[in-house]
């Protein structure tokens, strides 16, 4: 039997799955940011007319899925798997979204790395001929995350400059066996890295080693150099984490400074509230689905590496003195 693996961590697709369509919806703050015009829908409130933040997040996720389906000209009966994840306990935004569809559902959790984990799993299912079409979605909601991970939303406190602002956003991508659009060439599944950072207000420092490790492994496995990529999109190291990640790679002889961008930095204009940048499953999901997919479709890039990074902690673990384990998954995407 022939295996489609290269090196220790990378799956390479002979027949590359196609990212048939993508859709992104965001909250008001994200809509006012530098990428505002790129998104399919910008909500005027963070509650979306729902009774709670959690319900609002689930609705956002549903609308991203509906939009992605409509753009691909597909119906829910065409989709073989629905893969989704979010930040809330027991990934409820995804589960309550999934109950609205008659599609087999795989719930995943990778914190902010959820989107690339999902695209990776979706691509494996499609490339393995277990599915014709898979829809991958992920979301986060600032207020819902805030009340779960930090403080009540109306509590007045100052954020440290290393803190990151959880994005109110959702993105969805349809992965298909055929069609027009960017193609997934390879997937590198990351290993959990923990360098002992235990400060949940400094996730950039915690996640940077995971990012550097996965990028390094991907390049090793594929026997490539950074120059082979037009863009390395991380999500969401933030401003400080990006510098750390680049330096960690430079220490290994890999220079990505010219081609590296971070979804958390791209999503917002700098402000003390936003701190080091955006974060949350919805951040990189919306930046990729809203902006990058289009640019790949229009062939502005030949090949990009999407590296979403996730901090896999919980408030309970941090309060018990645990450090923050982090993971990053890389997806190499080529324009058609």
């Amino acid at each position, binding site marked *: 039997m022939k295996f489609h693996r290269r090196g220790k961590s990378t799956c390479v697709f002979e027949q590359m799955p196609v990212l048939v369509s993508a859709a992104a919806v965001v909250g008001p703050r994200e809509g006012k940011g530098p990428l505002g015009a790129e998104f399919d829908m910008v909500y005027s409130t963070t509650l979306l007319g729902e009774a709670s933040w959690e319900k609002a997040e689930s609705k956002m996720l549903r609308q991203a899925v509906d939009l992605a389906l409509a753009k691909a000209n597909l119906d829910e009966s065409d989709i073989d798997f629905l893969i989704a994840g979010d930040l809330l306990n027991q990934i409820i935004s995804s589960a309550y979204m999934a109950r609205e569809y008659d599609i087999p559902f795989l719930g995943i959790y990778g914190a902010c790395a959820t989107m690339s984990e999902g695209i990776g799993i979706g691509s494996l299912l499609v490339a393995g001929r277990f599915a014709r079409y898979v829809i991958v979605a992920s979301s986060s909601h600032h207020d819902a995350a805030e009340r779960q991970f930090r403080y009540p939303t109306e509590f007045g*406190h*100052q954020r440290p*400059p290393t803190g990151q602002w959880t994005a109110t956003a959702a993105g969805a991508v349809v992965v298909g066996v055929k069609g027009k659009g960017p193609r997934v060439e390879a997937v590198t599944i990351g290993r959990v890295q923990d360098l*002992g950072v235990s400060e949940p207000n400094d996730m950039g420092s915690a996640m940077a080693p995971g990012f550097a490790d996965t990028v390094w492994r991907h390049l090793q496995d594929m026997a490539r150099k950074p120059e082979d990529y037009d863009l390395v999109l991380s999500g969401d190291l933030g401003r400080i984490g990006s510098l750390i990640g680049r330096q960690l790679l430079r220490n290994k002889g890999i220079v990505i400074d010219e081609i590296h961008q971070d979804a958390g930095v791209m999503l917002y204009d700098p402000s003390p509230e936003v701190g080091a940048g955006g974060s949350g499953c919805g951040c990189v999901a919306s930046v990729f689905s809203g902006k990058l997919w289009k640019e790949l479709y229009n062939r502005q890039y030949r090949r990009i590496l999407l590296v979403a990074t996730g901090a896999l902690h919980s408030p309970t673990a941090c309060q018990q003195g645990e450090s923050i384990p982090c993971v990053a998954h890389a997806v190499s995407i080529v324009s058609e």
Partner: protein
Amino acid sequence: MTKANIREQEAYSAFLEDFRPKRATLRNIVVAFFVGGLICTVGQGVLTYIMTRGIPLKQAYVLTSSIMVFAGAFLTGLGVYDKIGSFAGMGAALPITGFANSVVSPAMEFKREGFVLGVGAKMFQVAGPVIVYASLSATVVSILKLYVF
């Protein structure tokens, strides 16, 4: 082995030193001083006004605290106090208005889980430790005052 050992952790921690952003400590102190001072000045104004209406000092203290607590709670309800807090930090947290904010904000946040398991159970999520340790230290100081000094 992807969980680093102590040596690797220390090396990484030292490596991070170069990347630590400077905290705007001076700005934070100045802003906290003036905003906190402003809140206290308002409190003093309220106290002085009440006393001009012929209310004795002891009752006027209690009344002033109640009015300031109400003001903090009201501004929290309007969605303003969190913005003052994010601007002024400790300057907004330390006065009694900040205490009101720390009680009212979870009450508002968790109302969606109902009045018993939401508001009732979570109301002191932020202020709880303050109340517990304030009561404890008050007790200790009272005992010391009673038997030692």
